[in-house]
């Protein structure tokens, strides 16, 4: 059983293994990413169940994007029969067809091969595993469990791009979510920008923020998990996030080109991180699997939910436990638009 600490929980292998449920809306995913020194990026998930409406707890699939240094993308999205998939309830060992994600802190292995794309990567964590105290409850009609086996890892191994296999190394991140209902506008959140595992010197910052929906008064919310060297040393939930300079894509979906996140918990975490979008490298219309009239209903009465992945410039100026943490550079983030 996970041991409670001042900031959350230390975790054991069972905490990042499968969390089975009979709920008709159940889903679970193991997420991983890596920025590699040769300019390639990988980001993806192993899925049990569908995290997006319509609910489907029986589906099993991988969804992995590879980007080259010019941000050309190769997306692998493939379903496998349930009988070819398995996940342990005792440890992290997820098998989806020939693809495997497995390991225990501090070491994980990611293997996937589909067509001309693939990877065989080892993640060696540089920070402790961690589970936040309160599950996220604002992104759907059920709470979303969250555990972060590694917010910062040294990554090494190979990736295969268009049939060409390359030795690579870089930095990566892995976390794991589960819930009894798909993510949707049924929660309280209007949007959520998440930047996972931003390394600044000895610090690793794992943060997200956004606003609540109109019926909750567009209240800002923001959370920061700050690691110094290998330990979580501060957690603040007194933050906010707000987008600006909105653009509209070809489907008429608006998204912010600038985002500000802030924390205001003196003595713990204070300050701002400003982000400026450079390029959208991924986009998903979350209604794309809806039938025509279901889609009409959702767009007429709910909104236009979407998922974006951005390359961005960041400018961080925060103070954690009285120590100033500043940095500027490039990174990338996820932006979830729930309505």
């Amino acid at each position, binding site marked *: 059983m996970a041991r409670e600490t001042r900031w959350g929980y230390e975790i054991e292998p069972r905490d990042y293994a499968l969390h089975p449920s009979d709920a008709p809306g159940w889903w679970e995913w193991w997420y991983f990413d890596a920025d590699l020194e040769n300019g390639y990026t990988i980001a993806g998930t192993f899925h049990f169940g569908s995290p997006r409406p319509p609910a489907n707890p029986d589906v099993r699939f991988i969804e992995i994007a590879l980007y080259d240094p010019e941000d050309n993308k190769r997306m692998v999205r493939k379903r496998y029969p349930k009988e070819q998939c398995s996940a342990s309830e005792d440890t992290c060992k997820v098998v989806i067809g020939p693809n495997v994600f497995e390991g225990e802190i501090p070491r994980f292995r990611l293997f996937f091969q589909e067509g001309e794309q693939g990877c065989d990567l080892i993640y060696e964590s540089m920070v402790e595993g961690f589970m936040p105290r309160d599950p996220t409850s604002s992104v759907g009609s059920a709470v979303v469990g969250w555990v972060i086996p590694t917010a910062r890892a040294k990554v090494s191994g190979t990736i295969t791009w268009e049939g060409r296999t390359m030795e690579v190394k870089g930095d990566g991140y892995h976390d794991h979510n589960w819930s009894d209902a798909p993510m949707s506008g049924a929660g309280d959140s209007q949007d959520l920008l998440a930047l996972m595992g931003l390394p600044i010197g000895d610090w690793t910052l794992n943060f997200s923020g956004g606003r609540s929906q109109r019926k909750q008064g567009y209240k800002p919310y923001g959370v920061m998990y700050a690691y110094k060297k290998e330990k979580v040393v501060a957690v603040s939930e007194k933050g906010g996030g707000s987008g600006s300079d909105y653009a509209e894509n070809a489907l008429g979906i608006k998204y912010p080109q600038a985002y500000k996140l802030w924390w205001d918990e003196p003595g713990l975490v204070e300050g701002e991180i400003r982000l400026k979008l450079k390029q959208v490298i991924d986009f998903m219309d979350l209604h794309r699997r809806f039938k025509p*009239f279901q889609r009409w*209903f959702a767009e007429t009465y709910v909104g236009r939910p979407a998922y974006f992945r951005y390359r961005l410039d960041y400018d961080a100026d925060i103070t954690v436990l009285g120590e100033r943490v500043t940095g500027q550079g490039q990174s990338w983030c996820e932006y979830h638009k729930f309505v």
Partner: protein
Amino acid sequence: MVTDELTGKMAEQLQVVVDRAGEVFVDLLEEGARDSKISIGSISEPDKRYLERLFSQVVYGQVVAEAAAILSFLVHAELHDDRVVTWTVPTFMDRCEGRLDEVPESMPAKTGGLVELARGVLDSGVERGEVATCLLQDIAGMAPVRPMRAAFDAVVLSLLGE
């Protein structure tokens, strides 16, 4: 057996209910303003008539067809009587719309693309049940569009998984 006369009378009853709800809402707004719970100053009698009209627009434009569709879907699921969703309530929607002095502004925007959407779905050739086909044909054949009926049909279609 539901008759034209009955649907007409029911549309009249619904209007009575909505008008009364509008008065209640506006009286509550006035009380809220008087008690400084909302800062909108005093509300004159002409203001109150305007607000009642807005309320009626919103209820007819955003609630009646949708609530009718949801309830009809439930009744249909219970009684398995297709006429509830293919004739009785759509006809009632026409009678309700016929009583309105003006079509609520939100309705054309909401329903404007439905004819094309329905035609596209019918043209896809996918096999579907009788109720869905009937509702799709109802929308596809509407000229001009009758917004309350179209919205009703569309909501039922979405509930049917179309």
